[in-house]
């Protein structure tokens, strides 16, 4: 019953939209009836555009996540295990963190020009922060007894990190990664819309500027699907990897 209620509003809106446009016969450069949007989407799907562009954007997202998240992993482990390091880095973090990644677009452009490296760099910068912060919190909150165990077993520092610290902090890290993934997608799409001629954002912008509203809305919906899909997939992975206990530890 509840899902029916929830579905009612969008369905009614879509119907009114469709009927309104068809009945009035308006030809618009900015609006298209839902049926036309669906057609445009299928066309774009079958001529390969959607897949191509999606692959490009996802490539950027994953690379950014990998680089930024990876660096953040190392950084946060250091911060967590060496409190002095964390304290000394505090001011630098406070100064760098509020810089909006989009403000760095011209800088990245200057250094790399158009294309993949520039976008990946910006995503990596954005992805760094959530993982670093969640990761630091995760490590700082590790059950102290686990660290005592590692001392009793006389583990080398490296072994300690890999056998005890990382596994214990993993659930919280994953939450940070999930957040970073969402941020990475947002930055990627934003950069593509603003200036970079690749990916789904660029396709969206192209459709808007070439006055193809059906294609434009189709790309918008598709971007929403990607966003939702990415989040869902990561939530699924989180549940599979960590189960109930992991979710609790991730709080």
């Amino acid at each position, binding site marked *: 019953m509840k899902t029916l209620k929830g579905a009612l509003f969008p369905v009614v809106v879509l119907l009114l939209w469709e009927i309104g446009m068809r009945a009035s016969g308006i030809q618009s450069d900015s609006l298209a009836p839902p049926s036309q949007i669906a057609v445009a989407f299928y066309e774009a799907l079958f001529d390969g555009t959607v897949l191509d562009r999606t692959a490009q954007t996802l490539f950027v997202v994953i690379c950014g996540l990998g680089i930024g998240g990876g660096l953040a992993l190392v950084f946060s482990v250091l911060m967590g295990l060496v409190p002095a390091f964390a304290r000394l880095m505090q001011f630098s973090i406070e100064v760098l963190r509020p810089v909006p990644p*989009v403000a760095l677009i011209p800088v990245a*452009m200057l250094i790399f020009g158009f294309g993949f490296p520039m976008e990946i760099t910006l995503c990596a910068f954005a992805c760094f922060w959530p993982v670093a912060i969640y990761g630091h919190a995760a490590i700082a909150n590790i059950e102290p007894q686990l660290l005592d165990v590692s001392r009793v077993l006389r583990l080398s520092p490296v072994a300690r990190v890999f056998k005890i610290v990382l596994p214990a902090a993993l659930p919280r890290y994953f939450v940070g990664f999930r957040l970073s993934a969402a941020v990475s997608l947002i930055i990627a799409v934003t950069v593509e819309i*603003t200036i970079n001629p690749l990916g789904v954002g660029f396709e969206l912008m192209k459709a808007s500027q070439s006055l193809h509203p059906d294609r434009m809305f189709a790309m918008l919906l598709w971007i929403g699907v990607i966003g939702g899909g990415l989040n869902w997939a990561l939530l699924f992975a989180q549940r599979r990897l960590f189960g109930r206990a992991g979710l609790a530890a991730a709080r």
Partner: protein
Amino acid sequence: MSGLERSLWYLGSIAVTALLVGLWQFVADHGGIPPVFLPGPDKAWDALMSGLASGPIAKVTLATLRRMIYGWVLASLAGVALGALIGSSRQARDYLGPTLEMIRPVPVSAFMPIVIAFLGLSGDMVLVVIALGAIWPVLLATVHGVSAVEPRLVELSRMLKLGRLAMLWKIALPNAQPDILAGARLGLTVSLVLTVVGEMLTSQNGLGYYVLLEGRAFHSANLFAGVILLGAIGLVSNLALQAAEARLLRWSRR
């Protein structure tokens, strides 16, 4: 750790930052990278100071600030009003909730080309996009805060026979204050981002367009100056809101 120790560590971290800036200076002077790509901090600082004193940077900064704040205030007010309406009605939440959840994962900047198609590349368009983007966190936070009132307080309002409006104004909305303020803080971040992107896209007068132009013209010192300013705006606005939040939420456990 005592307050003194804490302060010392903080000073130490400032020193570390100064060291990193020194490193930047060193690399810029001796690292073999053309100053076009990496101006030293001294050059960036000069550009910043002279730009602020007489040049265009001050004007564009003000334009950006004005846009960012107008959009944010508009969005926050609308977000609270709409959120209060939706949050206080179970029917509204049932019918509209799933739609809101569906729109949530869409990156806000993706709406920009849509609005451009309607409003063209104008200052209005930027303001509309900023408002549309910044309303989101405030709206969702308000809905959540208003709908999650402590059951005891609901019963209390029944015992005191408070009308629907009184209940909303005296109990539900104050209860949602922490959520609303957190949402507003997020909204301000979104507002800044959309302002910058909007200015870049529409070539509107502002810091976003300024840094884009300077980048294209390879005036890297000015570019860095602009980026520093944007970072400063982000930092100061966030700190200001945090301070306001702390003051307004004195009564809270958090």
